[in-house]
């Protein structure tokens, strides 16, 4: 409650400063102003273009997130368990991760076209590494004692993963997932900027090309809202999958 109140205060202050600054410095051309952004936003909603484009980007980002997350967790688990393989592949993964995707735009176009696949793959690639490295570190941080205990009970690799490694690395995995939510969106949007004729990234670059700053900010609102929604979903999943953390903040600790 009190938190929501502060948030609202914070938001209101931000908007007020924006509006005032925009007027004071006559910077409307560059930073627009909240009232204009709101108007532009409502127009976009009214003519349906907002939800149409947003849904496209949301689909791309969600698919990219899903694939990236699945591969990230999968490869993270695999390499976390096979340290030697991880050591061998390490420089190649860093290499792969370090390549600026923007610079590879022509290759992406060539291999994956300019349709939805390209954006999904771009988003997935971006998500992959964030999830992978966090999962990997999580798996490497699992207490070797707990693994030994389970081994002694006759646990095979599958039981180990299901009963110790995944639960123990879950905080790590979810941090990776939360880190990558915005990157899934950014990946999709970069894809749309590279080549698009629809999607919120297209709206964004189109508006920018026409110097329609209010529309740029309206599109940004869309992106942020998507991001917050995705984030909420990830948090929900996190809470559902880690019941033992429920109430941890309020629980009295005994030592």
């Amino acid at each position: 409650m009190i938190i929501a109140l502060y948030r609202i205060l914070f938001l209101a202050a931000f908007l007020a400063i924006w509006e005032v600054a925009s007027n004071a410095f006559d910077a409307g051309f560059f930073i627009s102003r909240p009232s204009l952004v709101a108007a532009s936003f409502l127009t976009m909603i009214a003519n349906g273009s907002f939800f149409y484009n947003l849904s496209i980007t949301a689909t791309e980002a969600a698919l990219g997130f899903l694939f990236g997350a699945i591969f990230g967790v999968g490869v993270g688990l695999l390499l976390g368990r096979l340290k030697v393989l991880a050591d061998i592949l390490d420089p190649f993964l860093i290499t792969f991760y370090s390549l600026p995707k923007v610079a590879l735009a022509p290759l992406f176009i060539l291999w994956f076209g300019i349709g939805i696949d390209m954006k999904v793959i771009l988003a997935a690639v971006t998500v992959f590494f964030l999830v992978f490295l966090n999962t990997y570190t999580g798996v490497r941080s699992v207490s070797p004692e707990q693994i030994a205990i389970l081994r002694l009970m006759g646990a095979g690799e599958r039981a180990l993963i299901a009963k110790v490694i995944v639960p123990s690395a879950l905080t790590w995995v979810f941090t990776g997932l939360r880190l990558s939510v915005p990157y899934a969106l950014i990946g999709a949007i970069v894809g749309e900027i590279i080549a698009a004729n629809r999607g919120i990234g297209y709206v964004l670059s189109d508006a920018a090309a026409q110097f329609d700053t209010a529309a740029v900010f309206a599109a940004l609102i869309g992106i942020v809202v998507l991001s917050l929604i995705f984030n909420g979903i990830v948090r929900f999943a996190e809470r559902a999958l880690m019941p033992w953390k429920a109430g941890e903040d309020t629980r009295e600790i005994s030592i």
Partner: protein
Amino acid sequence: EAPARLTIAQPSEGFLYLPIYAARGLGYVQDEGLDVEVTIFGKGAAAALTSVIGGESDIYVGLPAVPLQAWAKGQKTQLFAALLKQCGSDIVLSAEAARRTRLSERRTPAEKAEALRGLKIAVAGAGSITDLVVRHVAIHGGLDPDRDLTIIPIGGGGNMIAAFGQGRVDGYCLSAPTSTIGVVKFGGTLLLDFAKGEYPPLRDFLFTALSARPEWLAANRGVAVRLVRALGRAIETMRTRPEAARAAIGPFYPGVEPAVLDAAWTQAMGSLPTSLDMDAGGIVKNIDFLAEVRSARLDVPVAEVFTNAIVNLAAAPSTRHQEPAREAGRKE
């Protein structure tokens, strides 16, 4: 009959693609039974052309120098219609820079070009059209583009206006309406008025053209012809009924003040092509242009890189759409 689908790869947005906007805005594309999808490639012409080479898009629209470079590297796409035969990227200098370089006192193109000395000029991207144009002008003025001035690739129009408005650059090079905004809203001056042919080396320079893979052209001749016919009709309307065409452009630029757009429009009217066909001269100028700014000459067979077959077919009388056919024919 379902409309034929057609995808166009367009590297940026601006008045150098004016006939495309007009043909879409006036509904001529639909009249020809085409369903055109325009994809904007925010990362430049190379990416746009790559999508055509890779078969993802059908037609590239933009500076012919880009497909020529690709041809020289073995990736053949053929130019088949001209949309702009003047340099469409303007160099805008700030009022302060114009004063400092005494631009108003300079007369010949070479003198004006020399005014770039010591200035910081923003261009769209490294190796982009605008980069090359500024380099070409600088060389014409007897300058070394890498030493005597600072050329800064800065991305799109928004970035340029932001940097220009804040005085972080002395000038920039881009097509209308970005160039017009600098003039109208920020008191800038055009270094050279390309539209009026003030810069001889780029006079009758093939600046915007359509290009596609030869196989695609062979297989989709009818579709290409219809597109060219719609574009020809749009140019005709722009010339004969400018206010109608102007009205059709408006929706593409909702964020630009009408006054700015009007100014851009007026300037653009001066550089409308009279016909969509090409000649070897326009191509050679592109090759010369590249040779001058990059110290290497493209090795391409000039006669093969373009074809007027489509334009000619579009000009020929046809049963459908009598009127556009007649108009195109008159241009012959």
